[in-house]
């Protein structure tokens, strides 16, 4: 069995940034394993623009954004294998993978970075009643058919869920000549970015029906229509408001789930709130030497943040591989989601491993206006930040500097929560 410094599972934006950063921090024997025929992950099919505003200060398309990292990876000579699927990662970092050329690959990584991304929730997970015809797709699958395979799935569409992929696909299907009749959202607010609602729906006159859902699917062979219904405040359909909408395509944009089957097999602890691994300030999981970054940890809205998080994972994995990492002493702090907060990443802080500051990413449970985001430890208020509006659809962040960490309460955990402003 071959020994290798760092194995990166996944060649999407997270894996690319992590591998490059690990190389820049001195690791030379890196192998990136990618299951698809090209590097770039889901960005390959995101041909719309809007990527890279934070990192590059310009609006790139998905493939352009990915190319900046792919190019760098190739220039650095980092080794990668395409069409290679990882079958198993063991607790002691033996990675088993398979492809057509090498057959079965088994190697032991000194460190492993998980960057497998996420998958879409399906019709089955929602339990939408009715028939099971052709024409019901997750939005991402439809996006792949249109943008990569070159086929339009249908001509009259209803989209359930106002997640970003659903909004983007509403515009994309319209541009391809399909009629998008409506976007239905179960919640009273959209799960997508405001700019996507404006640019993908408003600009094309596509109605967004908030507090609406699909309660039945109709059609024997190909989809013929769906029944759309308003829901009450408990998200229960009000059947009197049912309306039959004729369509041949239903796209589902109803949430993303970090893809952690490999992580679980390796015995890595999963946070039920994120469905991703519990990670510390170095993006290391509960298994020493296995790091994780990007959508496999928690679902991001913006790839720029994925890149930032992945660079951190790459840098820390490099330190681990080189063996220069210091031994941790002192208290390990848990970070917990406090009042009105759904989850916080990273979930664990080892104080002396924090370089200058730590950036907490979190999502809130509802829409809140004029609030303060606070970081608390025991009775001490470590940092506070005013926000005009926060929504569950947009990931938020707050920083904690090394200096502020001096006020950490030894007897308490760290809470990120909202307070009325």
């Amino acid at each position, binding site marked *: 069995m071959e020994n290798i410094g760092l194995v990166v599972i996944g060649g999407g934006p997270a894996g690319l940034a992590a591998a490059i950063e690990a190389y820049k921090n001195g690791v030379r024997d890196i192998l990136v394993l990618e299951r698809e025929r090209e590097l770039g992950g889901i960005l390959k099919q995101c041909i719309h623009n809007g990527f890279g505003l934070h990192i590059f200060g310009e609006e790139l398309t998905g493939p352009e954004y990915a190319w900046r990292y792919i190019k760098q990876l190739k220039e650095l000579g980092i080794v990668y294998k395409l069409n290679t699927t990882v079958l198993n990662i063991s607790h002691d970092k033996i990675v088993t993978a398979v492809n057509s050329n*090498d057959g079965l690959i088994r190697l032991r990584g000194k460190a492993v970075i998980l960057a497998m991304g996420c998958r879409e929730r399906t019709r*089955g997970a929602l339990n939408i009643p009715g028939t099971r015809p052709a024409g019901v797709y997750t939005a991402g*699958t439809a996006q792949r058919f249109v943008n990569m395979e070159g086929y339009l799935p249908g001509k009259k569409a209803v989209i359930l869920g106002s997640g970003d992929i659903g909004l983007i696909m509403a515009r994309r299907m319209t541009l391809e000549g399909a009629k998008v009749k409506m976007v239905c959202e179960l919640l009273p607010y959209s799960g997508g970015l405001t700019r996507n609602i404006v640019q993908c729906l408003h600009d094309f006159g596509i109605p967004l029906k908030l507090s609406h859902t699909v309660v039945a699917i109709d059609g024997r062979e190909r989809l013929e229509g769906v029944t759309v219904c308003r829901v009450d405040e408990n998200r229960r359909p009000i059947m009197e408001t049912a309306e039959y909408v004729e369509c041949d395509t239903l796209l589902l944009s109803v949430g993303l789930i970090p893809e952690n089957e490999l992580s679980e097999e390796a015995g890595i602890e999963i946070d039920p709130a994120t469905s991703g691994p519990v990670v510390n300030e170095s993006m290391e999981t509960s298994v020493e030497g296995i790091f994780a970054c990007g959508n496999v940890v928690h679902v991001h809205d913006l790839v720029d943040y994925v890149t930032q998080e992945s660079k951190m994972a790459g840098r820390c994995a490099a330190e681990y591989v080189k063996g220069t990492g210091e031994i941790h002493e002192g208290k390990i702090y848990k970070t917990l989601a406090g009042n009105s907060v759904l989850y916080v990443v990273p979930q664990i802080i080892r104080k002396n491993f924090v370089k200058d500051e730590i950036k907490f990413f979190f999502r809130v449970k509802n829409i809140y206006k004029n609030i303060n985001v606070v970081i608390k430890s025991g009775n001490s208020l470590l940092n506070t930040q005013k926000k005009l509006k926060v929504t569950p659809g947009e990931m938020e962040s707050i920083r904690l500097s090394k200096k502020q960490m001096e006020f950490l309460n030894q007897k308490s955990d760290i809470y990120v929560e909202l307070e009325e402003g």
Partner: protein
Amino acid sequence: MKHGHYKPSVLMWLFCFFNTLSREVFYMEYDAAIIGAGVVGSLIGRELSKYDLNVCLIEKAEDVAMGSSKANSAVIHAGYDANPGSLKAMLNVRGNMLMEKLARELDVPFKRIGSLVLAFNEKDMLQLEKLYQKGIKNHVPDIEILSRRRVLEMEPQLSRKITGALYAPTAGIVSPYDLTVGAVENAAENGIELILGKKVLDIKPYKGKFTIIMGTDVIYSRYVINAAGVYADLISAMVGETEFSIIPRRGEYMLFDKKIGNIVSSIIFNTPSATGKGILATPTVDGNLLIGPNAHDIKDKNDVSTTAEGMQEVLEGAGKLIPAFNQREIITSFAGIRAAPSTEDFIIKASQTTKGFVNAGGIESPGLSAAPAIAEYVRDILISEGLTLNKKKNYYLVRRPVIRFREINDNQKVRIIKEDPRYGNIICRCEKVTEGEIVDCIHRPAGARNSDAVKRRTRAGMGRCQGGFCMPGVVGILARELDIPADKVTKFGGNSRLLLRKTK
């Protein structure tokens, strides 16, 4: 490899060809025609393929196992349910006994995991005692009534409210569509002709032969076996046999992620009621957890839609048995139709009025369990009806084995990829299905022609992402291997096209 594929004789082919040219129909004459390629028709076909006969298996759908056989509880019952002396009782127990060898010959996974019928009160316990007595009369091996404590030791996740259970160690689980596909493939390897996508519109007996009309296509056969499932009454009526009708009785199911597939290790039933065996919970042979079915008589024989109320009913029913399962792990729900006969028992007999016509209808539960025995039984009816059976000289008892990448060991993986690199290309990441397996399932006899058929044969798209990632890959392989444009690929035949057209 000693397996050959059946080729019609050149003469026969020429005969067909000229008929096709001259009359735009194809003309074939068979010894026996089986209508319906569900598990029953397919196993009858496989049984008859052992003999020197010219047999065809006609199916209106674009694949086999498209009716009751694709959506049911997938349970091989032990045989204590049916009334002693009934066909159901006899054929269930016999079918169960045959299943192990059959599954091995057809390379289909079958697991004898045992079943438990749970009792929750004194009344239920009396019911269990009755079942036990029936089981003894039906010659079900090794059944016993277990105490609450023993049951909970065996299955710690069950409801603490139980008072005891009837244990039947011979009950098992199988994949009903795998069994059907395996039977048809092996039958085809032995020369049976599969006619897919042709609906029988009429059957006319004439001078000791039947004319079977399927649109513009007509075939002739000396014997007809009606295994048309929920449509068996309509087929039977075509020859004037109207003594029974089939009531479509829908049952809804929910399937859970493999993560909780081992929450129980045996098949868990509630105490049966007048309407049937009730909602059960069972592991599947593929490692998922399956719950269902409810039972509702419906009008439309083809209506396999699910309902919100039905799914709630199933969840509540299963929740009574296993309180702790996590509803977040549901990966899909579906419905199947039972072919419930107006008679109490299966209707398996030769027509009294139309010589040569044999019904194998009303095959509701325990139809899957009984199917191997039904095949033998129908064979014997045909013999008594005058069909001469001579064993074939070259008969392939064993179906050409299927490579299931996720199940073979590392050495086997290395070897198979070396032989055919397509087995190193994973298409379905959730179920670890390779390109090699998908290509193979398309080119086997009775091969897959659409994405659902690929799914049933290989499990590509059956996992937790429900085809979200692999569907474009599967569509691409189907288009390439069948040499059709991708926008002509369907989900399950007919108008179930997956894609509208190429983008601009």
